């Protein structure tokens, strides 16, 4: 706790001022984040009559059920597979798109224009963007039509739509922007003089990438990773629609449970998923102090 430097305030007055400023934020987060999470936590320990009625009490039955059921492991593996694949593709594309815009486009106005070009589709509904793959990937879609016309295949490929491939394509389509924006932001703040100095000192382009650009974009990469990982792990409708019901994720199973009013098991699996997410995010925050980097 460092006392504020600009005005002669005592630490306790600075604390009060800080809390006054963030109090509206806290007044929203407590009833709409903390309380709901506690409700879910409580519900995970309740018993159920099987018809949506909850009996207050304390039982670990739901956790035992979730942890002991074979599908749980499969769901987590599927979710992790989608998360890792999406993360890898969005990171590669996002990093190089940001790198291209910051370091290769010499005209700054053009760079900003191209950056906006990347963000525009983000303003369209996610669901609409997802179903926009149907005319392309479908059995009678453009890709199959083109491949058939070229004679590359004789039967339409069925693997394109309603498959794991389609799920990953939809995720990458939706989420790359969440990598581009923070990475672009942190890269844009790298002083070009630093790179010129490195060149003068004999660094190769690879050295510059490895020793300057990547370390200094770390906060952007971390922030993008948090966005992408938490969205993919918390999502269910992309998996549901794009896999055609063939695949499931932890949250889509949760959704099914809620649909049949199995609140305690749904809550237990939600608590487990949230713990996994908290572990991942705090691991990332431990490596990179986002707050420090953002406010510097």
């Amino acid at each position: 706790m460092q006392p504020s430097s600009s005005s002669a305030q005592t630490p306790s007055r600075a604390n009060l001022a800080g809390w006054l400023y963030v109090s509206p934020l806290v007044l929203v987060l407590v009833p709409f984040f903390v309380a709901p999470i506690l409700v879910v936590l409580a519900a995970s320990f309740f018993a159920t009559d099987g018809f949506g009625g909850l009996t207050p009490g304390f039982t670990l039955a739901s956790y035992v059920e979730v942890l002991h059921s074979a599908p749980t492991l499969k769901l987590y593996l599927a979710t992790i597979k989608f998360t890792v694949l999406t993360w890898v593709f969005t990171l590669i594309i996002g990093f190089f798109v940001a790198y291209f815009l910051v370091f290769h486009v010499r005209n700054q106005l053009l760079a900003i224009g191209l950056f906006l070009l990347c963000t525009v589709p983000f303003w369209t509904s996610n669901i609409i963007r997802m179903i926009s793959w149907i005319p392309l990937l479908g059995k009678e879609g453009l890709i199959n039509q083109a491949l058939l016309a070229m004679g590359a295949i004789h039967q339409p490929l069925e693997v394109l739509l309603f498959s794991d491939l389609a799920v990953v394509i939809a995720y990458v389509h939706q989420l790359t922007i969440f990598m581009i924006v923070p990475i672009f932001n942190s890269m844009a703040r790298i002083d070009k003089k630093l790179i010129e100095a490195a060149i003068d000192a004999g660094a190769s382009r690879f050295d510059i990438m490895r020793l300057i650009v990547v370390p200094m974009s770390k906060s952007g990469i971390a922030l993008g990773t948090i966005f992408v990982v938490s969205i993919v792990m918390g999502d269910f409708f992309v998996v549901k629609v794009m896999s055609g019901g063939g695949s499931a994720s932890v949250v889509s199973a949760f959704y099914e449970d809620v649909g049949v009013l199995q609140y305690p098991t749904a809550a237990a699996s939600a608590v487990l998923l949230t713990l996994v997410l908290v572990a991942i995010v705090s691991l990332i925050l431990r490596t990179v102090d986002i707050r420090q980097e953002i406010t510097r």
Partner: protein
Amino acid sequence: MSAVLADMPKSDMPKSDMSKPVAPATTKAIAPSKGDRPWTFYVLATLFSLYVVALYGPMFCIYVLSFQDIRGGLVFPMKGHSLHWFVDLFTQVRTGDVKGSFDRSIKLAVIVTIITVAVSFLAGLGFRKRFRGDTLVFYMMIGSLVAPGLVLGLGTGLLFQALGLNASWYTSALGAQLSWTLPFGVLVMFAVMSRFNHVWEEAAYDLGASRWQSIWLVMIPVLAPGLVAVALFGFTLSYDEFARSLQTAGSLNTLPLEIWSMTLNVTSPSLYALGTVTTIVSFIVIGASLGTIVLIQKKRGSQAKG
């Protein structure tokens, strides 16, 4: 920029590299202001173009397909052209209450935007200085951002149920959406405020401004473009919010919920027409916001000159 240089030791730059014999590196510049493009430029330019094509391609397909006539289907080739599916979208009962949900979504997004801008701005001010418990608030915010939306939505729904309150789009859904737009807004605010020069604020105090005068007369005008950015974030995140609204919107749907139920039971180009309409609305909102930013900059420019 001094902040960047101060960070240098953190960037693991080995000191030993400095002592190596220096090679002339003019041709190897990665971002020279002059000279030929390195080969990586062409590789990355290709990657960028491919990305943009993949980004826009599918969406253009549905925009085009939404203008088919009554025989139209979900895939190419296109059958005729008309506005049939747009009329169908807003008149047919079977496609759901598009007009009503559209209305609600816009209203909700406007309310969310106003609250998000105000609360994020204040929180941004609060986080500029350390205070006891700031880390707790920060982590609460990050938690709210990363918590699975469906889980939080269910929790809010159950909470309202337990308290005997009716879930509706302007109470529980509003709160659930704010738990998602506020963390985004505050993070953007951090980035915006990191570029604010504190000297201006100090100058205002030196000239006898009160805290509120310095906020109203100095900070808000200077930060206006950033605040517009936060507003834009708030609007689109809310307009598009789905998972958190699912269990909290009550009996009346918001637009994404309506689209969701349409994807489950409508298999006509009406769905694509809806995509086209929502895109047009988004463009109007972005256009208005960018226009505001330009206007602010222009006004400021002329004030500086005059």
